[in-house]
């Protein structure tokens, strides 16, 4: 009798020890702050340092597109090439910080370096805190994706300003193999998923050669900031929490006679754009949602204010009402 008890004790100690050694998280439990931090850092790092190639599917709303991606990260090399397999041919080529593009019509526009590093599977920012201040991480369980064993993690928003995300992370390397953003009704609104992937191994040099005549794109390297945009025409206060201002620019836009002021914000996983231009009575006002993106347009004094992003309606409205035009002077921007 004593012997059996002893064995049970020994067995449970062994199991407990085993669990500690393997550091297997418990399904459906929240990760501690430290574990979450390690996870985000590991996944962000894997996308930079792991060599991989494969085909992934990008699904948004009722559209689906396949892309081929090849990333070589061997000694001293950091080369990435992606091409679209569906629809019009597009190609993205990156060597270190140099980015070249091929787009239909041959146009090229400046690329924000910090943001362009966010193409799947590189969605996590380098600074884990940027994400973890807004989301808590729950380990869900394990699943196979593209023939690989993955751990599933839910990123649950800490407030109602964001949507939940779910990530499938390669168990051995930490490479993200699938990501899903869920909408208001918990329906998937944006999915990236490898359908075939080779992780590690060597890459045929010919695979890294661009297929289309890519052109170098100017790279914009401005760092993000927590301070508010300083615009003489606007009072900006009470912006929703957890968002950083990433960029302020003036840009020409299709169908607009004058450049439009653009403020770009991010919370580590999703981005929000605020567009400011002179009010146009013909412009559609109100709220619209499409494939996970919410658009809110309203008149603010002499301006048309359009806010959009991969966030719920409350968030774009809160952003919009955080902007108040100073006085009624009808200055141009």
């Amino acid at each position, binding site marked *: 009798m004593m012997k059996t008890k002893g064995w049970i004790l020994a067995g449970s100690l062994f199991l407990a020890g085993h669990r500690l050694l393997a550091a297997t998280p418990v399904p459906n439990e929240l990760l501690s702050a430290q574990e979450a931090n390690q996870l985000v850092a590991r996944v962000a790092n894997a996308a930079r340092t792991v060599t991989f190639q494969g085909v992934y599917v*990008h699904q948004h*709303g009722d*559209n689906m597109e396949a*892309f081929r991606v090849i990333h070589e990260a061997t000694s001293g090399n950091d080369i990435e090439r*992606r091409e*679209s397999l*569906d*629809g*019009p041919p*597009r*190609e*993205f080529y990156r060597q270190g910080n140099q980015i070249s*593009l091929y*787009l*239909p*019509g041959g*146009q090229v*526009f400046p*690329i*924000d370096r*910090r*943001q*362009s*590093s*966010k*193409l799947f599977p590189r969605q996590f920012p380098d600074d884990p805190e940027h994400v973890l201040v807004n989301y808590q991480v729950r380990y869900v369980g394990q699943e196979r994706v593209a023939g690989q064993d993955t751990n599933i993690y839910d990123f649950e928003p800490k*407030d*109602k300003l964001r949507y939940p995300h779910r990530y499938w992370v390669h168990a051995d390397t930490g490479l993200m193999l699938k990501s899903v953003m869920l909408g208001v009704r918990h329906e998937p609104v944006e999915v990236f998923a490898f359908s075939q992937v080779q992780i590690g191994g060597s890459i045929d040099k010919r695979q890294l050669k661009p297929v289309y005549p890519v052109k170098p*794109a100017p790279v914009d390297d401005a760092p993000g900031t927590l301070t508010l945009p300083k615009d003489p025409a606007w009072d900006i206060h009470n912006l*929703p929490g957890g968002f950083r201002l990433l960029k302020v620019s003036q*840009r*020409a*836009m*299709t*169908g*607009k006679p004058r450049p439009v002021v*653009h403020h*770009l914000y991010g919370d580590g996983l999703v*981005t929000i*754009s605020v*567009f400011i231009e002179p009010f146009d009575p013909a412009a*559609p006002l*109100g*709220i*619209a*949602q*499409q*494939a996970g*993106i*919410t*658009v809110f*347009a*309203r008149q603010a004094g002499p301006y048309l204010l*359009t806010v*959009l*992003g991969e966030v719920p309606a*409350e968030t774009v*409205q*809160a952003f919009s*009402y955080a902007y108040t035009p100073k006085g009624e002077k009808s200055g141009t921007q």
Partner: protein
Amino acid sequence: MKEHLSALIDGELEPAEFDHVLAQLHADPALRDDWQDWHLVGDVMQQHPILSPDFMKNFSDRLATEPVVLVPAAASRRRRFMRRALAPLSAAASVAFLSVVGWQAFHGAYTGSPLAAPQMAAVKQQAVRVASTGTDNRFRAYLVAHHEDSGNPIDGRDIVYASFETQPTK
């Protein structure tokens, strides 16, 4: 009008035209005959089984004569005991349901309030319009700019637009 009817059958009619065409269809028996005939032709070509011409009428008649069964007679006596046993439970359940609804309403109101600007209340009453991908191009320019700057330049949903609009010089 016939082109419109044909477009409606093919699913190619602009949604804005629906009401007009349906009203015409309602008013004009000749159009209704066309409608029947074209569907018949379509069914034959797609090898769907052909129903008798007065199928709808027969179906409606039979439906009207069907008895309305509310509670199967045999089950009702056994149910009575169950109902008595379950009544307190269902009362508890409805209280629980009410409190969930109440909590959600309260919760919604609560999370709404820190954001609420005076204008917000008015705006919240606008229904959120779900735009269909194909038809709503009004926000496309903004989407293009958003995706370019948020770092996904090869995203297909913008390319479609860019390919048929000329890009202004920068």
